[in-house]
């Protein structure tokens, strides 16, 4: 990913001003939230409600070995509209997109460049919880989302890296002849 010179300078420096923005594409209308205090309106007109660090996001990490980690959004002390959507039919959120952006800010707290997408998922499950605390009830909404490619995990493979498959793709090719049993091959050095 290529950052602009201004963002690169900030990342290499002492002070970083960066917020994380989340855009939920609910069927009845999208809702944007971010972890800042104030409401944020981007130049493209999208508005993100400030959650004042009440939310958390888990699962944004580089997939390894083909694993696609589940994205988990937990928002505590949610606004009424968010909770209302959480209680609606699955059609409101199921398999609809959720985007996570990073937005950098300059020294005057103004958006620096456009936000860039960190992760994208399709909403799968959404549950609301109300918990009694000494200070009263706290509402928490947890939403799970999966990488769109996650469904490929359950699909059978079209082909394999075997000698037979390779010769079917490229007749006469010997590149995969030693794949079978390769773990038992002993190579002596020097």
């Amino acid at each position, binding site marked *: 990913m290529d950052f602009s010179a201004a963002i690169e300078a900030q990342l290499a420096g002492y002070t970083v*001003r960066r917020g994380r923005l989340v855009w939920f594409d609910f069927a009845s209308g999208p809702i944007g939230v971010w972890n800042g205090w104030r409401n944020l309106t981007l130049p493209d007109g999208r508005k993100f409600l400030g959650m004042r660090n009440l939310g958390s996001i888990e699962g944004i990490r580089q997939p390894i070995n083909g694993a696609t980690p589940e994205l988990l959004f937990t928002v505590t002390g949610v606004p009424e509209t968010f909770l209302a959507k959480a209680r609606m039919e699955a059609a409101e959120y199921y398999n609809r997109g959720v985007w996570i952006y990073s937005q950098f800010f300059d020294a005057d707290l103004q958006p620096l460049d456009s936000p860039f997408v960190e992760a994208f998922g399709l909403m799968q499950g959404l549950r609301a919880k109300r918990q009694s605390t000494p200070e009263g009830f706290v509402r928490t909404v947890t939403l799970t989302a999966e990488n769109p490619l996650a469904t490929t995990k359950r699909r059978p493979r079209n082909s394999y890296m075997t000698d037979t498959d390779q010769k079917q793709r490229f007749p006469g090719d010997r590149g995969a002849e030693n794949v079978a049993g390769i773990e038992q091959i002993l190579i002596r050095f020097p």
Partner: protein
Amino acid sequence: MALLRYNATLLKPKQLTVPFLKPMLVIGPTAYGGGKQRGAPDVGGWIMDLTLDIVTKDQELAWRGMVTALQGGLNSFVIGVFDDRQAPVQTTLAAIDVKLTSALAEGAVTAAVTVTNGAALKTGMFFSIADRLYQLTTDAAPVAGFTNRFTFKFLPPAREAAASAAVCNFADPTMTAAFADPMTGMLKLGRNYFGESTLQVEEAEYGL
């Protein structure tokens, strides 16, 4: 519905923790070079604590009514910041009048104002626009060619947009707030006669 306004005439604090912009700072680990990167998504919101004596009957009634009406922070209210001592000095008998020279966008941190009947606006002074509290982070700089126009920087970023000629309240700035703790405002009376109570308030996003 209009918000309840704190009765500052009747309920003056005896002790005040001046409004403080509670930061949202995240401090990174120490690098090999000894440096620590600091980050934040935003500047945070105001918090304020006050302690006051409740002695007279009117004070007790006003206090109890207010605390009950605010329902532990469910409802927001408007409260002043008791900053008379730091307010700009009046230069005439007429009240200080500060208005925006140009419209203020949501999220802005710089304002241009016209000042009438007031002395210099200094770093650290509070002001409010439509009951949203802000604080100067630079001295007001004069605009070339004008005797009473100035610009300054402030924080937090403008919570909402304001039109040109909107009043900037420097004389008695106010904050839209809510109780930070649902149990705040409890009143214990000595001999059922007088007592002391505290308020912990934080900036509220009511209306935003």
